[in-house]
């Protein structure tokens, strides 16, 4: 940096000169107009609704410079750089005829606004790049010296590099930063922020007893190392991934996808670098030799909805899922609202309509097709089948290496297979429930464009109900050459996988099925129902003893049901790949021109050598030159810690989003994440919580209320209500009920009757037992059409689409929830029991103990008084109405004093102090 080499004294002299310069007319006239700060907001407000990405009245658009400088429909040029007087745009601002004067049918621009535009054009009409679309560069730390001219060291308040950015603005606004919060407050704050719940007792105790300088840093390190850390941050990510345990829409049946949740927990815990974390979720399946975990990571984008409602168009909902993947990728990973580009070019930001579909093309080639089974999924085999799998792989590796990859993929994912729901031209049959091809006697159907080259064996999964079925496959038409005549074995109504040899055939053909069964007399009776077909070749070393042995493993794995499925992403092989069209006005039925996969030009193209698929997209997204990825996650982490983002609109960094309060800090942190911290989120979090800014006391002083009620300047610590998950986890922790069990299928804690009532779905909420009812909130079964009530009342989202942030509310339903939900009543009961165990006698001491357990600090005399009064009122009442004691304590041998203490613990659980991160 050049400035660094200039002696400070010259800077001081320069500073004295500035007012002189500002005073001169010369300086003002030659000041460069800042496009982003001055011109773009004016254009966005006054011009762009008619001359932008959506509408281009008279062929004029101000979105891109190239377009704005072009000749319009009128034959005139709106903007001539360097010549405002002759620029049609300026002329139009002065006219008197209301039909001609711009803005059309709106008040004219002010003289100041017009002269700004003129000056800008005369200076060359330069388009500036929006801050968020400029790659992150290294940002110098502001100097915030104290004393005359700032030459004498830094303020003692400053603890790390974050603080000067904050301090500078605080000072400029005439505020003073707050002092560091007391230890118990800081302990509670940093515990919720890092692990989402109160710190484990041992860690808390160690911190409170350690009076050394490094006590806080040790605490932070220990919290970051706990397994609960991964649970807290996985919970955040699940909102973005729209994670749920059901599929959505009418039936809203269950979905087994919890291994993805467990993958997240582990990824956070091992501090998987964020660039790899994203790559695996977006394109884990496309990495060389992907591991099971990398496949499971791709479930990120299998959290889209599947529609099982009878009569729905599978292609419509497949398309809807792909669109959702595009929108979610942008809004959650790149803080950009891309959804509007689905119908037209972005109204404000530099994204063209066509670019939406180029990006969509990157996602449009996956195997999932809204099937009922949610193919493709990864099977995790259990018990002996996991050993068989190992043996099979080992054998294939040694004996048939050329077939290993393909056969293992078939066994583990069932792919590549052709889903029968793609059938068309169906006669005497139907798509049963619109999900499976079903043929009756003399039924016919076609499966289009199947590449038969190199295949001599056909696998098919089907069910039938009667013997005697004959299935013919013809090529290209019902009268075309017969490929195969198959006698269908009666599966007696069960799904069955069978094989048949087929003759060698070259090229792509339509497969036309004809089904006959003389034993079926009723014309309405179903004959055969197909699930999928697969073209393959005989198993290696077929017919040899060792081949037979390996085949046995293969065959039993193929038929095994002893596995946990996780829906994953897998691409179509090249002979099945889809072409992507633009959807005119966003309507999937109105297909426009064909597009090839790519990323938007305005954010830099794909990195050199990147393939044009999801993997290439992930490489581009995690490239250090991508301006949005690091900024988005840094901003999101900041929001988790401080209650609001540096850019408040976490979901929109575009020109219509809210500008960052501390743009340089955001740039600095983004640079840190990618370079200094090598994409380590733990290191990023640590840097933030080690700042003085974070550690401040959160009390509002008078200045705060008048000058900065929303703490945009951070002259005090964050104070926000806890999240739905944190409120539950905290109550279970202080009561001692919390189960530390991690991972596994989702659980069913107490929920009132009658919440689940989906049509055509008999699923019931059955209360979990053996401690599973006391698991952390993130393990609660999440049903999209009826989410867990306390999640909803404390601002959880329904997880139907990506929720880039939660909006906090404060409602009476929340009060009722934490007062009366059985979860909280039980927590209060156990909390009271825990206190009595520690302090058997003396109500005063019990109350102060309860408070201490909740907050790790000593109760104030005033608070003690409040709770003692409640205790006495309750004690008197329970002595009178002793029949209520068992009702409230849940204990036959309970006495009035334990009931009274339970009223106190209920009250503590409901205090603002308890529900808020102070």
């Amino acid at each position, binding site marked *: 940096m050049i400035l660094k080499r200039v002696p400070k004294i010259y800077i001081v002299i320069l500073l004295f000169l500035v007012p002189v310069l500002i005073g001169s007319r010369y300086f003002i006239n030659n000041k460069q107009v800042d496009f982003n700060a001055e011109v773009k907001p004016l254009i966005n407000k006054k011009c762009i609704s008619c001359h932008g990405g959506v509408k281009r009245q008279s062929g004029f658009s101000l979105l891109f410079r190239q377009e704005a400088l072009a000749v319009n429909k009128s034959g005139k040029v709106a903007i001539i750089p360097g010549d405002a007087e002759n620029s049609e745009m300026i002329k139009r601002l002065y006219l008197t005829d209301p039909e001609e004067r711009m803005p059309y049918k709106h008040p004219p621009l002010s003289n100041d606004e017009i002269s700004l535009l003129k000056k800008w054009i005369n200076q060359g009409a330069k388009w500036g790049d929006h801050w968020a679309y400029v790659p992150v560069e290294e940002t110098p730390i502001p100097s915030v010296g104290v004393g005359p001219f700032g030459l004498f060291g830094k303020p003692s308040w400053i603890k790390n590099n974050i603080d000067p950015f904050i301090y500078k603005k605080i000072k400029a606004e005439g505020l003073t930063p707050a002092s560091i919060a007391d230890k118990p407050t800081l302990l509670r704050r940093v515990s919720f922020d890092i692990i989402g719940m109160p710190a484990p007792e041992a860690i808390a105790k160690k911190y409170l007893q350690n009076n050394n300088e490094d006590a806080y840093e040790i605490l932070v390190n220990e919290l970051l190392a706990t397994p609960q850390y991964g649970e807290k941050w996985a919970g955040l990510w699940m909102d973005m991934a729209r994670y749920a345990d059901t599929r959505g829409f009418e039936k809203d049946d269950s979905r087994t996808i919890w291994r993805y949740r467990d993958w997240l927990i582990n990824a956070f815990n091992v501090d998987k670098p964020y660039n790899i974390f994203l790559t695996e979720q977006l394109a884990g399946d496309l990495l060389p030799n992907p591991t099971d975990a990398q496949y499971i990571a791709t479930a990120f984008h299998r959290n889209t909805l599947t529609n099982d409602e009878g009569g729905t168009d599978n292609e419509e909902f497949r398309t809807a899922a792909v669109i959702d993947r595009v929108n979610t990728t942008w*809004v959650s990973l790149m803080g950009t609202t891309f959804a509007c580009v689905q119908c037209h070019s972005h109204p404000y930001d530099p994204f063209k309509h066509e670019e939406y579909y180029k990006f969509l093309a990157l996602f449009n080639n996956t195997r999932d097709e809204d099937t009922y089974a949610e193919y493709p999924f990864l099977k995790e085999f259990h018990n002996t089948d996991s050993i068989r799998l190992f043996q099979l792989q080992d054998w294939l590796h040694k004996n048939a290496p050329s077939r290993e990859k393909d056969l293992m993929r078939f066994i583990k994912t069932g792919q590549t297979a052709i889903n029968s729901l793609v059938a068309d031209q169906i006669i005497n049959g139907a798509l049963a429930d619109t999900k499976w091809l079903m043929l009756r006697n003399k039924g016919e159907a076609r499966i289009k464009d199947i590449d038969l080259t190199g295949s001599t064996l056909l696998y098919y999964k089907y069910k039938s109900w009667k013997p005697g079925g004959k299935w013919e496959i013809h090529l290209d038409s019902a009268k075309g050459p017969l490929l195969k005549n198959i006698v269908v074995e009666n599966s007696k109504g069960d799904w069955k996988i069978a094989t048949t040899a087929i003759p060698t055939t070259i090229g792509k053909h339509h497969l036309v099925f004809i089904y006959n069964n003389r034993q079926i007399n009723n014309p309405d009776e179903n004959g055969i129902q197909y699930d999928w077909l697969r073209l393959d070749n005989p198993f290696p070393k077929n017919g040899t003893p060792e081949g037979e042995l390996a085949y046995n493993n293969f065959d039993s794995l193929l038929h095994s049901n002893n596995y946990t499925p996780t829906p994953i992403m897998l691409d179509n092989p090249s002979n099945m790949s889809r072409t992507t069209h633009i959807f005119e006005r966003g309507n999937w039925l109105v297909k426009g021109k064909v597009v090839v996969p790519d990323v938007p030009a305005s954010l830099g193209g794909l990195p050199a050598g990147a393939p044009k698929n999801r993997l290439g997209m992930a490489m581009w997204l995690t490239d250090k030159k991508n301006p949005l990825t690091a900024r988005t996650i840094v901003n999101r982490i900041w929001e988790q810690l401080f209650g609001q983002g540096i850019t408040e609109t976490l979901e*929109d960094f575009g020109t219509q989003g809210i500008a960052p309060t501390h743009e340089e800090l955001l740039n600095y942190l983004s640079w840190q994440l990618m370079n200094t911290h090598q994409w380590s989120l733990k290191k990023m979090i640590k840097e933030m919580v080690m700042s003085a800014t974070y550690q401040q006391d959160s009390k509002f002083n008078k200045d705060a209320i008048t000058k900065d009620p929303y703490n945009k300047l951070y002259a005090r610590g964050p104070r926000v209500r806890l999240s739905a998950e944190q409120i539950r986890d905290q109550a279970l922790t202080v009561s001692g009920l919390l189960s530390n069990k991690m991972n596994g299928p989702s659980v069913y804690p107490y929920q009132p009757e009658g919440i689940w009532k989906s049509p055509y779905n008999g699923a019931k909420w059955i209360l979990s037992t053996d401690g599973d009812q006391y698991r952390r909130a993130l393990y609660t079964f999440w049903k999209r059409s009826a989410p867990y009530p306390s999640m909803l009342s404390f601002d959880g989202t329904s997880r139907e689409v990506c929720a880039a942030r939660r*909006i906090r509310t404060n409602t009476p339903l929340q009060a009722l929830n934490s007062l009366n939900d059985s979860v909280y009543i039980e927590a209060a009961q156990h909390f009271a029991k825990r206190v009595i165990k520690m302090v058997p006698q003396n109500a005063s001491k019990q109350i102060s103990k309860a408070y201490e357990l909740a907050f790790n600090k000593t109760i104030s005399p005033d608070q003690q008084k409040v*709770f003692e009064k409640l205790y006495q009122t309750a004690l008197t009442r329970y002595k009178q109405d002793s029949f209520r004691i068992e009702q409230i304590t849940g204990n036959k041998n309970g006495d009035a004093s334990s009931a009274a203490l339970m009223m106190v613990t209920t009250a503590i659980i409901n205090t603002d102090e308890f529900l808020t991160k102070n």
Partner: protein
Amino acid sequence: MSKRSNKNIIQEANLQTSHQITRKYFFKECFSGIGAMALGSMVGGCDWLGSKDRLDQFVNSNPLMAQAPHFIGKAKSVIYLHMAGAPSQLELFDYKPELLKLDGQDCPQSLLEGKKFAFIRGVPKMLGPQAIFKQRGQSGAWISDNLPHLATVADEISFLKAVQTDQFNHGPAQLLMHTGSARLGRPSIGAWATYGLGSENSNLPGFVVLTSGGNNPDAGKSVWGNGFLPSVYQGVQCRSEGDPVLFLKDPAGIDRDLRKASIDAINEANQLTYNEFKDPETIARMAQYEMAFKMQISVPDVMNINDEPAYIHEMYGTQPGTTSFANNVLLARKLVEKGVRFVQLFDWGWDSHGTDVKNAVDIGLVNKCRSIDKPITALLLDLKQRGLLDETLVVWGGEFGRTPMQENRDGKTLPFKGRDHHTEAFTTWMAGGGIKQGTSFGETDEIGYSAISGKVTAHDMQATILNQLGFDHEKLVYPFQGRSFRLTDVHGRVINEIVA
């Protein structure tokens, strides 16, 4: 503790807090931006730097406090009766004698080409009306014998005979009807109305949902969700079994006095927290605990129909202690009477495919009609006699219509007479709340297949409902994901033909 002291504390809390809460709300919304544009859109701008004088203008704008709409609306509240599953217009309101003549004949190819149906495959047969129609009242509206009671109040109603949708599956079509979008994630119309108008009764939620028929609607709770609006605007489902509102009832072992004592203690402790931190959110929380305490009385009170006079039970056909559409209709009347802004009823079981007796258009549908006929008629009469019909908009409808063809699921003949989902024309109606009396708008062709005039969409109905409440549907917006969203998206026209 006496009732008096309760009241005093509540009043005190309200007085003491309203200033600060609302100030806080304004601060928050203006400074945080999320509501800045929203408020701005409704009240004409919100200064980013927030001058003190301007803040005082908004002292009364807590999120649920009653607010003025864009103009003076004729309706103060809405009762929306949704027949989930989609009732057959051809057996209720859209009389097609020509269709009777074609009964049993093959459906002409011209009606099938290029069309998609949920279940009809191949060539279905035409199915004549399975009910007897008569003209009713002065207006001469055609109403079938399936709804004999409703026939007597025909002159109160404006029918929309040519409603269209582009969604032929229940879930998406219901979403479109209630959220303006067939995909999940948008706020429902009740949430929009509450967001725009607030609530007139601070002891009750502004937007209440009641369901009957054994299932929730196909689209789940999203049809009364808040979408991207703050969750305070979501519909509160009041239930007829268990707690009317979730977690309303105190646990056994805590009586009212003890509950009072515990809320007092919580709020005294909160006052101490406030004294220390001076965070206005703490004051807001104290008010919400007081409100919760009040709701524990006011909600069961309004949800209790036992004390209604016998003639009311007779009129509505209600039976206390059961879950029924009739009970829900009576509750809807009680709720709007108490100032609840939007009451949404869903009655499940109208999907008349003909796959079994319950959904046969000539059997199951008749029974469903019987269960709604008396209560809906009673609702219109009861609102009228109370002078509430003028200010209460009643809307009736399903999510789409049903085909003039008999359903032949998977190309087979079904055991009962039924009709498939139909998007091109169906009937809904509105009454009260500034809607014309005794009119009909829109026409279908002679077999009820296509709309030929007066076509309207879900967005048009939504625009009309908002219009009756005093909103320009194009201006009631909320910024989300970079743009201003509105209920009607980029569509919608107020159906002035039925507005009085």
